């Protein structure tokens, strides 16, 4: 059975972002049907589909919705996490720019399910042109009665607002997103209480990734059984994969989670370019451990990649060919984490700084063998000691390259220089 794209079926059509084109492809039909159901029934349907959060953690979305207290007197909120900052990830960008009404429809259904009247789409500041597209789409939908007051005569009021971030990776973490939305630094909160109970402005809040919400309309129209059957057990539904790095055709590809990592790289993205060989893949954004070529015949699903020793994360595959120095790659990513650490927890803030110093020292050829133990020790003192998963994320590139490519670290130290100074890099 060939797989028909669900989320990106018409994104290459001209004017696919307009309401008229989207309506021609059945937009807002899921919302119309959801409004004929009871809110609890909508949550049950999403639960039954097994939809897992597409932002990185893979937590079941229906369960998240179910945690919102039904009897709370406070207003409730839905936040759409469009911060998309994980290095290598660019899937939500396509959805918001080319199929924004699907995202809005998902937000509106979530609002109906949990009893919220307002939804905020927190979009990263660098997506300036995408925020404009979303705001245009919201205005069109509101003018034609698909959003706003008394949608389809059902009595549901739902307003959606776009809120631009200003360049902070940490704002993609859900409690830090709420802080940023409240006009503060994007720094995580201590949990519990979880946002479903005490979230935005202290009110119950559901926070879902763009792609998660975009899956909801099809679950309503086509049914949870159809959704679950698309992929392997507990990994149902369509999935967007972002493939970048040394491949012939980098881009966003929609597939089911039955597809293997190797198929995604070779068949979808055209394989490694310039006839070179694959050296390593980061399968789910920079926060996930690297995989070696002999491990990539696994299914690109949450459970499949977990079994292979890494994580699906945000499904951002960064592919590296055999000209890549893995110490340099680790240092590049730690530079990212050092810059983006919000600074709230000492192990993460100071640890990233120390790891970068040690990695740069090794990369330029001044390393000593004991630096490797030091690096490992610093990394092990970060994991599990921070308020949010950033700490665990920043050690993944270091620990996994140390595990799989220790010989490259040792070669730097023995030779006193980088053994693999690829021509696409600068001389230090």
């Amino acid at each position, binding site marked *: 059975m060939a797989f028909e794209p669900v989320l990106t079926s018409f994104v290459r059509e*001209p*004017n696919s972002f307009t309401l008229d084109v989207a309506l021609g492809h059945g937009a807002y039909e899921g919302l119309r049907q959801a409004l004929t159901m009871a809110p609890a029934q909508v949550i049950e349907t999403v639960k039954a589909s097994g939809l897992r959060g597409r932002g990185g953690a893979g937590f079941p979305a229906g369960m998240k919705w179910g945690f919102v207290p039904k009897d709370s007197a406070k207003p409730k909120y839905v936040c759409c996490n469009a911060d*998309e*900052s*994980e*290095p*290598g*990830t660019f899937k939500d*960008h*396509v959805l918001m*720019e*080319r199929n924004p009404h699907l995202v809005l429809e998902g937000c509106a259904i979530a609002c109906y399910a949990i009893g919220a009247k307002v939804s905020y789409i927190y979009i990263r*500041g*660098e997506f*300036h*042109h995408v925020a404009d597209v979303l705001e245009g789409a919201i205005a069109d939908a509101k003018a034609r009665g698909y959003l706003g007051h008394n949608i389809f005569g059902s009595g549901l009021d739902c307003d959606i*607002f776009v*809120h*631009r*971030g*200003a*360049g*902070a*990776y940490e704002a993609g973490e859900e409690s830090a997103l709420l802080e940023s939305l*409240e*006009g*503060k*630094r*994007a720094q995580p909160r201590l949990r519990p209480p979880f946002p479903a109970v005490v979230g935005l*402005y202290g009110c119950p809040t559901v926070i879902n990734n763009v792609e998660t919400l975009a899956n909801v309309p099809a679950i309503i129209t086509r049914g949870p059984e159809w959704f679950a059957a698309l992929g392997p057990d507990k990994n149902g539904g369509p999935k967007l994969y*972002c493939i*970048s*790095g*040394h491949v012939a055709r*980098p*881009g*966003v590809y929609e597939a089911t989670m039955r597809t293997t990592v190797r198929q995604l790289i070779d068949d979808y993205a055209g394989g490694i370019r310039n006839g070179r060989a694959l050296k390593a893949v980061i399968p789910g954004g*920079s926060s996930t451990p690297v995989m070696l070529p002999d491990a990539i015949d696994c299914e690109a699903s949450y459970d499949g990649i977990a079994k292979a020793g890494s994580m699906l994360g945000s499904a951002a595959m*960064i592919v*590296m060919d055999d000209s*890549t120095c893995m110490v340099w*790659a680790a240092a*590049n*990513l730690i*530079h*990212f984490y050092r*810059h*983006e650490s*919000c600074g709230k927890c000492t192990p993460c803030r100071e640890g990233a*700084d120390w790891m970068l*110093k040690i990695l*740069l*020292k090794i990369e330029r050829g*001044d390393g000593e063998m*004991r630096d490797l133990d*030091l690096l490992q*020790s610093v990394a092990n003192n970060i994991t599990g000691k921070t308020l949010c998963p950033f700490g665990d994320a920043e050690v993944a590139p270091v620990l996994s390259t140390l595990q799989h490519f220790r010989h490259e670290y040792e070669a730097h130290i023995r030779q006193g220089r980088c053994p693999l100074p690829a021509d*696409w*890099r*600068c001389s230090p």
Partner: protein
Amino acid sequence: MTFHPKMPYDTGLHTSGRRVPEQGEPFAFTPENQARLDEIATRYPPERRRSALLPALYLVQRQQGYISGHAMQYVADAIGVTPAEVEDVVSYYAMFYSQPVGKYVLQVCRTLSCALNGAERVTEALSAKLGIKPGETDSTGMFTLMEVECLGACDRAPVVMVNDDWHECLKPGDAAKLVDDLRAKGPDAVTGCHLCIEKRA
């Protein structure tokens, strides 16, 4: 476990390095920007006006190019928070500038997917062409060069953001030409996002 004392720490001690914001000229919103802020504030509950802080700072930056000390004071009054709280936010977010910048801010993505495609050499080429290091503004006040972290356009690497627009697939060899094109053609020199197919047609 101890850090060994002989290690040559090239970046010095890790200090907070607060830069005092440039005070600048006295600041007030234009009537259009004030009206825009009033509209934005209605999106949030009335008692949660602080949520409009980031949008307000964007308006300041669009009006005067950066966010001066005077502007922070003005925004603090307009939102109803303290100037320290405004500076706290401005200094945290990478996209807010508390020092004047050039007319074109060239922001080269340096994170892995772009770096694998030659971003380091793009920065090197831009730096040589403009005669400035990343973080500096050239003597004409036309260009500021910056290295930034992942811009979220990894399939079109290397990506450079020029003010609010993307310039995609910039090869190191074409970097100097981008500077010349910006001087000659202005903002039209950038490619924009490849997904804006209607704009490109």
